[in-house]
C-alpha cells in the first residue's frame, strides 16, 4: 500500500493540477492557436503522471500518459487544437479527476472508449513519435520528473508493483548481481536491450534512481510486447551481471521483501524537525532552570548540572542525526555542468572538493537552488569561449571549482571559475546610474559589486555586456544565504576569474550566541560571527573615509553603535564600553554595546517579519529568564 503521506500529497497536488487544467482548457478554447495553455496542460498532466507512476496508481498514470501523448502532438505541431480535440481533453481531465479521487481504493478506472479515443487522436498525429518518447533510457519521458514527493527518497521504489492496466505484455523483475560495480548502469543497459521488443512502462525504481545507483539491485518494469519470455530473458542476461529474471506473478512476490538495512532506518524528516524543536524548547527550559536554581543547595546544583549535561548530549545527538554530507547536493552538478558545456559550446573542467563536509539537512535543502544559479552563471558568463581563452593565453578548457570548507562554526561553499572576471567598469557605471555608488568613485569594491549584482532585476541591464543575467542568480543566492543567517561574498579579478562564497551556519535551530545589552534591551549575536570582544576606547576612535572607526590590532574597523541602531536613549552611557568585533568573511565591524551578558544557547524562533522590520534583525529568541530578545544579523551589520 502506498505511504499515506505520499498519497495525501499526491491527492492535494493533483487536485491543484486538475483545477488549473480546467482553466487552461477554457483559455485554450478561447484562443485555439495559443501555445501557453497547451504547455501548461502538458506540464500539469506530466506531473500527475510522474506522481501516479511513483505510487503505482496505474490507472491515473496510464490515462495521463495517453493524454500527454495527445498534447505532445499539439505541442510539436503534429495536431491542432480543434474543438473536437479540446472536447476530448476536457473529457479526459474529467476522467483523470475520477481516477485521482479513486486511486487509493483502485476505483475510477477510465472507460475503454475514452482511452481508445485518446490513442486514436495521438496515432492520427503520428504514433511512432509517441512510442519513441517512452524510451526509459532517453533523457526525457521517465516517470520521475516532479513525481517522487519524498524529494528523491527512494522509498517509493519499495512499493509493490501493481498489475498495470495495459493487458498485453509482461511484468518483468530483474536482479543485478550484488558486489559488482555500477549496478544502476547495468540495469539501464538491460533496459536498452529489451527496448527493441516493445514499450517499457511502470519502471520501478525510476530512471533517476537507477542513474544515481539508488537501488538495491532489483528493478521491475512492464514491457508491452508479444515476445516470448525466453527471448526477453536472454536479452536481459546479455547485459551482463544479471542474477535473476522473473516474469509476471513471480515478480510481485520478489519485490515485496523488506529492503531496510539492518543497522539503519529511514526517519521522516518532519519527525526529525519535531525532535529538533522539542530539544530546542528543552534547551530553553534548561537555561531557565539553571537560572532559577542558582544559589540552591549542593544536591540541587548537582542535579541541575546532570540534567544540563544530558540535555546538551541529547542536543548534540539530534543535531548529528540531521547532519548530511554536502555531496548529496554537490553530486547533481557534474552532469549539469557537462550539459551546460555542451549547450554553450565551452570546454569545462568541473571539480569538487569537501563533499564529505556535513551540514544540517534543512540547510542543505536550501543550497541546491542558489548553487545551481551560481554554477550556471560561472559556466555561462564567467567562462569564456575556447577561442577567447586561447586568444588571451589561457588553456581552452575553463575550470569551475565547487568546494566546501569548515570555517569556525560555519561552512563556506565556494563556486570559483577561472574565467574573465566581472567587468567592474560596466557594473560601476550601472551602479552610478542607479545611485548605488558615489558618482565620483573610480573603483568598485567587492562589497559594492555584490550589492549591485544582488539587486533584483539587475540582469535586465543589457548594456552591461558579459555579466547580464548574473543578477538573478546572485539575487537568489544572496537572499537564501541571508535567510539562513549566512552571507554571500564575491571576489573577482579581471581576466583571472570570479569566486562566490556562500557562508552558512552548520545548523539552523540552535546556535550559541553572545548576549549584549543596549539601553534596556538585550540582543543576541550568533557566536559564529564573533571574532573577538574588545573594549571601546573613545581615545582610539579614528575616521575611515566618512565613518567612525576604531583601530584594533593595527586594523581599522568601522564602528556601529548598537544604541544608535536601536534608538535607545543616550542616558548613562559608560565612556568605556565593550565592543564586539563581528566578522563575516573578510569584512569586519566593531559593534559597540553597553554591556556583555555572557553566552547562551539560543533557539531561533521563526517569526513572520512584519513589514518595516529593520534589516539588522535576523530573528527572535526566548532567553533563559523567559524574556524575548532579538537576534542581530551579523551579515547585515558588516
Amino acid at each position: 500500500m502506498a505511504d499515506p503521506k505520499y498519497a495525501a500529497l499526491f491527492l492535494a497536488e493533483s487536485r491543484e493540477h486538475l483545477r488549473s487544467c480546467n482553466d487552461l482548457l477554457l483559455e485554450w478554447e478561447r484562443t485555439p492557436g495559443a501555445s501557453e495553455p497547451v504547455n501548461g496542460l502538458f506540464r500539469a498532466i506530466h506531473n500527475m503522471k510522474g506522481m501516479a507512476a511513483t505510487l503505482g496508481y496505474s490507472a491515473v498514470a496510464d490515462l495521463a500518459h495517453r493524454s500527454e501523448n495527445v498534447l505532445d502532438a499539439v505541442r510539436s505541431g503534429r495536431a491542432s487544437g480543434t474543438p473536437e480535440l479540446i472536447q476530448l481533453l476536457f473529457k479526459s481531465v474529467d476522467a483523470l479527476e475520477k481516477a485521482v479521487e479513486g486511486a487509493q481504493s483502485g476505483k475510477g478506472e477510465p472507460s475503454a472508449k475514452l482511452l481508445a479515443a485518446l490513442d486514436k487522436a495521438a496515432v492520427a498525429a503520428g504514433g511512432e513519435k509517441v512510442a519513441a518518447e517512452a524510451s526509459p533510457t532517453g533523457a526525457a519521458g521517465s516517470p520521475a520528473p516532479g513525481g517522487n514527493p519524498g524529494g528523491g527518497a527512494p522509498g517509493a521504489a519499495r512499493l509493490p508493483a501493481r498489475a498495470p492496466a495495459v493487458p498485453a505484455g509482461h511484468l518483468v523483475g530483474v536482479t543485478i548481481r550484488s558486489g559488482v560495480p555500477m549496478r544502476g548502469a547495468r540495469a539501464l543497459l538491460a533496459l536498452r536491450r529489451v527496448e527493441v521488443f516493445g514499450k517499457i512502462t511502470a519502471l520501478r525504481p525510476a530512471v533517476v534512481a537507477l542513474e544515481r545507483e539508488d537501488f538495491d539491485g532489483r528493478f521491475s518494469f512492464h514491457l508491452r510486447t508479444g515476445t516470448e519470455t525466453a527471448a526477453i530473458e536472454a536479452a536481459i542476461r546479455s547485459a551482463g551481471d544479471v542474477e535473476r529474471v522473473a516474469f509476471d506473478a513471480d515478480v510481485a512476490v520478489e519485490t515485496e521483501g523488506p529492503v531496510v538495512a539492518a543497522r539503519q532506518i529511514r526517519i521522516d524528516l518532519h519527525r526529525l524537525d519535531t525532535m529538533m524543536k522539542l530539544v530546542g524548547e528543552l534547551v530553553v527550559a534548561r537555561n531557565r532552570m539553571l537560572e532559577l536554581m542558582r544559589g540552591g543547595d549542593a544536591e540541587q546544583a548537582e542535579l541541575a548540572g546532570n540534567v544540563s549535561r544530558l540535555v546538551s548530549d541529547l542536543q548534540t545527538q539530534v543535531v548529528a542525526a540531521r547532519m548530511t554530507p554536502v555531496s548529496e547536493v554537490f553530486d547533481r552538478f557534474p552532469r549539469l555542468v557537462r550539459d551546460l558545456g555542451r549547450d554553450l559550446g565551452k570546454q569545462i573542467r568541473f571539480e569538487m572538493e569537501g563533499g564529505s563536509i556535513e551540514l544540517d539537512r534543512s540547510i542543505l535543502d536550501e543550497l541546491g537552488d542558489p548553487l545551481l544559479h551560481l554554477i550556471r552563471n560561472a559556466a555561462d558568463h564567467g567562462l569564456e569561449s575556447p577561442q577567447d581563452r586561447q586568444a588571451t593565453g589561457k588553456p581552452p578548457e575553463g575550470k569551475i571549482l565547487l568546494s566546501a570548507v569548515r570555517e569556525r562554526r560555519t561552512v563556506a561553499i565556494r563556486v570559483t571559475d577561472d574565467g574573465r572576471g566581472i567587468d567592474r567598469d560596466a557594473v560601476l557605471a550601472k551602479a552610478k546610474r542607479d545611485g548605488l555608488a558615489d558618482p565620483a568613485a573610480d573603483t568598485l569594491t567587492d562589497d559594492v559589486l555584490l550589492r549591485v549584482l544582488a539587486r533584483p532585476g539587475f540582469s535586465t541591464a543589457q548594456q552591461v555586456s558579459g555579466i547580464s543575467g548574473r543578477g538573478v542568480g546572485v539575487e537568489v543566492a544572496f537572499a537564501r544565504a541571508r535567510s539562513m543567517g549566512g552571507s554571500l561574498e564575491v571576489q573577482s579579478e579581471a581576466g583571472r576569474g570570479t569566486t562566490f562564497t556562500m557562508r552558512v551556519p552548520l545548523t539552523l535551530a540552535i546556535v550559541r550566541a553572545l548576549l549584549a545589552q543596549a539601553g534596556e534591551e538585550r540582543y543576541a549575536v550568533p557566536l559564529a560571527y564573533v571574532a573577538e570582544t574588545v573594549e571601546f576606547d573613545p581615545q582610539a576612535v579614528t575616521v575611515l573615509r566618512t565613518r567612525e572607526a576604531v583601530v584594533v590590532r593595527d586594523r581599522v574597523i568601522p564602528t556601529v553603535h548598537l544604541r544608535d541602531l536601536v534608538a535607545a536613549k543616550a542616558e548613562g552611557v559608560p565612556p568605556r564600553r565593550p565592543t564586539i568585533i563581528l566578522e563575516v568573511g573578510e569584512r569586519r565591524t566593531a559593534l559597540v554595546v553597553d554591556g556583555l551578558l555572557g553566552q547562551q544557547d539560543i533557539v531561533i524562533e521563526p517569526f513572520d517579519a512584519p513589514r518595516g522590520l529593520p534589516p539588522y534583525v535576523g530573528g527572535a529568541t526566548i532567553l533563559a529568564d523567559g524574556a524575548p530578545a532579538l537576534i542581530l544579523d551579523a551579515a547585515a551589520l558588516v
Partner: protein
Amino acid sequence: MSNTVLVCDDAIFMRTMIGDILTQAGFEIVGEAESGLQAVQKYRELKPDLVTMDIVMPDMGGIEAVREICKQDPDAKILMCSAMGQQALVVEAIQAGAKDFVVKPFQPSRVLEAVQRVLG
C-alpha cells in the same frame, strides 16, 4: 579470422594492458587512439569489430566520440572503460550508444566477458 579491435585511451599504460588482455584472448589490435577525435578518425579508417573507449580523454572525450561514431555507424560495438565513481558518465555513454562497460581496475576475465557480450 580473429576480431579486430581499436583501443582508445589517453594512457599508454591502459592501452598496453587492454591490448595484452585482448591479444592473449586471440583478438587483433588494429589501432590505438589517444583522444576522442583520433578514435572517430581511426574508426572510420579501420572499421574495427570492437572499440574499447576510455571516458575521459583530451580533444573530445569518450562519450562525445561514442556519439560521433554511432552517428556514422549505429551498429558500432563500443565497450566503455570507466573508472570507479563515473556512474553518471557511464549512464550517459550508454544513452549515447555504448554497448557495455567495464570498470577499472580491470580484471581480465571481466573484460573478456564484456567483450563477448558486445560481440555476441
